[in-house]
């Protein structure tokens, strides 16, 4: 369909795209600015990056973030794939609610509920409690992506394999699994990104001992706007860009959100 679109429509859509990108551009550009103030362009420097790499707390936070995201995405990929499979194949009553609820309710509720839960269990807050919480909210996302992939799959392929004498496990291993693999990988990348970016739930379940990149950024930003934050933000933006590009390549349907 290629009709003439009124100019005001183009303009407003263009304005919306500018609105989306200009702020991020500002952050990136000023990460190379040779001034402590994020106000005027003074000159090019990479000093903020080298300062960043000498910042012990920030490096520790980055290590924590990567570790948590790695463990959380692996575990939630397994559990989420199973959940997605169960949602597709069986008539479940409780599971659909438990899969969608963490996504549908305000994040702060899950954060404070888990905080109380861990404290009641006498589990000291830290890397473990953060990771356990991240797995809980990532399962749903993986499950939805995997289920979407499964519902697009031709069921008769599995039946054919079974008719040819494959056991249910073999049919899964050699037919279903390769077919849903792009969905599984896309789901795990999604879980990784969600985990590494999460602020609210991490904020409540981290306690005083452990810090992650978002928590570190939060505490820096609370005190002052500094170009060091621009530098770490730029690096995180790059990482996210990389992950989403890979995910979009593997499963273009991920972008549709037709669920």
């Amino acid at each position, binding site marked *: 369909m290629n009709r003439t679109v009124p100019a005001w429509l183009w303009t407003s859509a263009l304005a919306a795209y500018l609105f989306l990108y200009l702020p991020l551009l500002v952050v990136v550009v000023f990460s190379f600015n040779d001034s402590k103030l994020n106000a005027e362009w003074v000159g090019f420097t990479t000093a903020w990056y080298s300062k960043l790499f000498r910042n012990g707390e920030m490096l520790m936070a980055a290590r924590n973030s990567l570790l948590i995201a790695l463990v959380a995405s692996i575990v939630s990929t397994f559990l989420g794939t199973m959940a997605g499979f169960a949602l597709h194949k069986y008539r479940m009553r409780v599971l659909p609610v438990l899969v969608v609820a963490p996504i549908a309710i305000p994040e702060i509720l899950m954060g404070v*509920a888990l905080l109380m839960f861990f404290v009641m269990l006498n589990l000291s807050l830290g890397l473990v409690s953060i990771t356990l919480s991240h797995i809980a909210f990532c399962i749903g996302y993986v499950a939805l992506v995997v289920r979407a992939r499964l519902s697009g799959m031709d069921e008769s392929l599995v039946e054919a394999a079974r008719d040819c004498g494959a056991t249910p496990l073999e049919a899964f291993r050699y037919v279903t699994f390769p077919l849903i693999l792009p969905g599984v990988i896309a789901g795990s990348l999604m879980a990784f990104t969600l985990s590494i970016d999460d602020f609210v739930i991490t904020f409540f379940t981290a306690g005083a001992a452990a810090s992650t990149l978002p928590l570190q950024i939060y505490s820096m930003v609370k005190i002052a706007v500094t170009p060091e934050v621009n530098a770490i933000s730029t690096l995180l933006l790059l990482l996210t860009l990389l992950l989403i590009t890979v995910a979009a390549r593997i499963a273009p349907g991920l972008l549709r959100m037709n669920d």
Partner: protein
Amino acid sequence: MSDAPQQPGSAREKWFVAGPPLAYLIVFFAIPTLLMVVASFRVAGEFGGLAPLRSESGAWNLTLTNYGRFFETSLYLELFAKSFVYALVTTVLCLALAYPVAWLIAHSPKKYRDLLLLLVILPFWSNFLIRVYAWMIILGPEWALARALNTLLGLVGIAPVTLMFSPFAVIVVLVYVHLPFMVLPLYANLEKHDPTLLDAARDLGAHAWQRFRHITWPLSLPGVFAGSALVFIPAFGIFAVPDLVGGTDGIMIGNVIKQQFLESRDWPFGSVLSIVLTVSALVLTGLAALAARPRRSAA
């Protein structure tokens, strides 16, 4: 949902597959949520947290006073009303910004659609705090925006204003952070519209506004509703945005919940606030869904 036939004797297989994720979500989601519901009826501990569930005499230590406290003063109801207004304004602004974008993507050549959509999603995948932080720079007093505005205000003799740390900053950032949530469901809906309907309307002499008012808009209501729910619910309960850019005037209910848990350490009252927040967010979106229904059938 699939209607795959359930084979007999597959019960063991079913629990083998569904059991682990079910167990995990029960332990780390259902139980904590239920504990919070119980906590909202419990008594606060002397040094924060919770008092024992049963007192030394063995009586249950449960009370309704936490809920009473919520309605005792107008403070909390006002805070809820304020958060509601902020979330509503955010939702309406997101809708106004997102509709042209979603419509244009849905009507652009197929080969560009994925790219245009990806361009909307990318900022959404970038870290939430970075997106807030970007506006802390832009709305900051040293930046051109504030300076230009204040020069202008100075010309007409109005005292300079600060953009940061105000309800204005909260709304701008809330719109920015949630915009993609509105574009995606709107696009998914608009893409499915049958273009021949618009052609028919045009042939019958309907001009552009009439075609929008009587065809596109009513058909897009499910998308409008889905997007609004995706924007409204998180915006209603947000605490990081008002915390960072709201100053004292821009405080929302999320900030008070955070304060109850981390500063006052009054868990029962914090639980009450969280439950009222969640229930009212879900009820409001439910009501909006009902309101959207009759008009949809009239279309």
